[in-house]
């Protein structure tokens, strides 16, 4: 793909503006969070053009935003954040993406490196066999006719009611794992058919399970409030989404909204941005279905986390109560939500799209769980599979500037084929193992495509978010075991 040569005005060391005048039809300017080094790389592809395209969407307020992990996507850039007035703005399924409520959860443990390291092989084998993963993986749970509606309405609560995890997990999940306003009647038969056999599966691509160690603690008190106590403590990550059900919901509504655009007199530079007014039948139907898919994804991560806990305790010979396997938090990073924000001194009801972006609400916000009310919402930023991941917290600055949002991951810098040309799956496996990381992967080719070298350095991504003030670094972890679908 060709480089992007449009105007990018430096606001300060971490903020760059695409002026509204760049393209006729932009309703607001674009703002990209990045440092000077990252900007060079961002310009190499069409991510900034996508930031400008999002600025065309009716009802968009303030700016079309891109977080520091911005990269070239389809429709919205990955790392894109945009808020539209509910009153006269739109909702766009392309602003959420095909993997609705792709997200991350982090579990803490009471165990330390020396207790877990000698058992990494059996632990990874047990995790690999307990959690179905890979292309087309089918789950251990088979949802029958009526069950799926329950999942779509109740999300994580459905899982807990069926014995997967604990009630305490719900409080530490964004939206309590159960987004209100889910309307199962807006989810198509095809979506249900795809979703029914896939509950409790990881999938493929960049989805993973990770056993990690706390590597550094930056803010001890804040970390302690989350149960992150000391360097060397073992942590567990789950990263996945709504599987075929979410993909089908997105397909259905991108198509339907594409048809409705003429009716609403909307014209856009990219059909993947297809949208409808939030308060239209199409907009409401999409939000009702999207929330169902989001709930499915939360139930999915809840079930997976349950099997992860079981496998962990079995292999390490500890009781669940002694293992301290508490859920620190679960975040969604592909989602649209109706939220209230202050814009130029006015309180506005907005439809906030986060596509490859994480909510980052500050201390004291009513959506932040009680236990974290004094520190802010935990933000989980996984890196690539060989390097570090970060735990941050949301800030007031994020509320002021980014509708309470921050980055979501490392962001790719190399295409999948380029990654494979450079390194074979075997090379990647050897290199990870030489760094003390035990790997289980469904396919070597998949492993090559997800090579650490194909990603930006997550440390530079989170340091931009931290320095810009849209979230603050609390701790970082490094992997010792990875499962890739």
């Amino acid at each position, binding site marked *: 793909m060709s480089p992007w040569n449009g105007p990018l005005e430096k606001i300060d060391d971490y903020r760059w503006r695409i002026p509204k005048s760049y393209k006729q039809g932009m309703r607001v300017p674009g703002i990209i969070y990045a440092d000077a080094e990252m900007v060079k790389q961002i310009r190499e592809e069409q991510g900034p053009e996508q930031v400008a395209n999002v600025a065309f969407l009716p009802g968009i307020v303030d700016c079309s935003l891109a977080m520091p992990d911005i990269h070239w996507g389809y429709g919205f850039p990955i790392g894109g954040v945009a808020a539209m007035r509910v009153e006269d703005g739109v909702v766009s399924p392309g602003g959420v993406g095909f993997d609705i409520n792709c997200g991350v959860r982090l579990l803490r443990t009471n165990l330390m490196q020396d207790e877990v390291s000698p058992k990494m092989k059996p632990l990874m084998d047990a995790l690999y066999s307990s959690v179905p993963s890979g292309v*087309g993986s089918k789950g251990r749970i088979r949802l029958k006719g009526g069950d799926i509606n329950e999942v779509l309405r109740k999300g994580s609560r459905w899982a807990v009611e069926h014995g997967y995890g604990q009630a305490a997990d719900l409080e530490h999940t964004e939206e309590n794992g159960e987004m209100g306003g889910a309307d199962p009647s807006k989810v198509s038969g095809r979506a249900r058919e795809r979703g029914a056999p896939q509950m409790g599966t990881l999938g493929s691509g960049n989805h993973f399970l990770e056993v990690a160690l706390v590597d550094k603690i930056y803010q001890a008190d804040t970390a302690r409030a989350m149960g992150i106590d000391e360097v060397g403590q073992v942590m567990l990550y789950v990263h996945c989404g709504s599987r075929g059900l979410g993909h089908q919901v997105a397909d259905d509504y*991108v198509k339907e909204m594409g048809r409705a655009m003429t009716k609403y007199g909307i014209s856009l530079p990219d059909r993947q941005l297809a949208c409808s007014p939030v308060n239209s039948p199409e907009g409401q139907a999409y939000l009702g279905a999207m929330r169902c898919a989001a709930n499915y994804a939360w139930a999915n991560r809840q079930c997976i986390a349950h099997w992860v806990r079981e496998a962990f305790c079995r292999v390490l010979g500890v009781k669940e109560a002694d293992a301290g396997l508490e859920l620190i938090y679960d975040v969604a990073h592909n989602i649209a939500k109706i939220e209230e924000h202050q814009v130029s001194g006015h309180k506005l009801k907005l439809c906030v799209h986060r596509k490859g972006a994480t909510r980052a609400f500050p201390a004291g916000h009513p959506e932040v769980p009680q236990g974290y009310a004094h520190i802010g919402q935990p933000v989980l930023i996984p890196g690539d599979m060989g390097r570090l991941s970060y735990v941050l917290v949301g800030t007031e600055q994020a509320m002021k500037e980014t509708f309470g949002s921050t980055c979501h991951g490392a962001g790719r810098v190399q295409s999948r084929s380029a990654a494979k040309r450079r390194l074979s799956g075997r090379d990647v496996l050897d290199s990870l193992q030489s760094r003390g990381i035990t790997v289980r992967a469904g*396919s070597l*080719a998949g492993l090559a495509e997800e090579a650490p070298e194909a990603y930006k350095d997550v440390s530079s991504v989170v340091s931009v978010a931290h320095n810009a003030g849209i979230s603050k670094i609390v701790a970082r972890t490094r992997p010792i075991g990875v499962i890739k679908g």
Partner: protein
Amino acid sequence: MKRFELIEHTADMGLVARGHNLAEAFGNAAYGLFSIMADLDNVQEKEPLKVELREEDTETLLFEWLNYLLYIFDVEMLLLKRFDIEHFDGFALKANCYGEKYDPSRHRLKRGIKSATYYMLKVDRENNQVQVILDV
């Protein structure tokens, strides 16, 4: 003439498919889609699948055609490799597709595809060529 070529995309993948006519380009796009997902060498053409679609424009027909096949793969685990397009008029398509159910002992899956997207989707009627970006 190559049936399809891959397009480099940082996060995802894309393909350009060609044919002697647009119908054949649609068939080759489907072939490209399954080639990205699996090694098709060992897949036999023994299970048939009839597909009939109608859309308001050719671009949406391409979007729907590929996404319908992804839905079939998800639900039936059917790996398809032959796509005989019986009828094609730019709005409607009838196809007889052939392949077999995924058998982990004989077939190798390479990667999952979440969806075909509208981004950079192109139907080039003059050159009987189609282009699509896939969400991987």
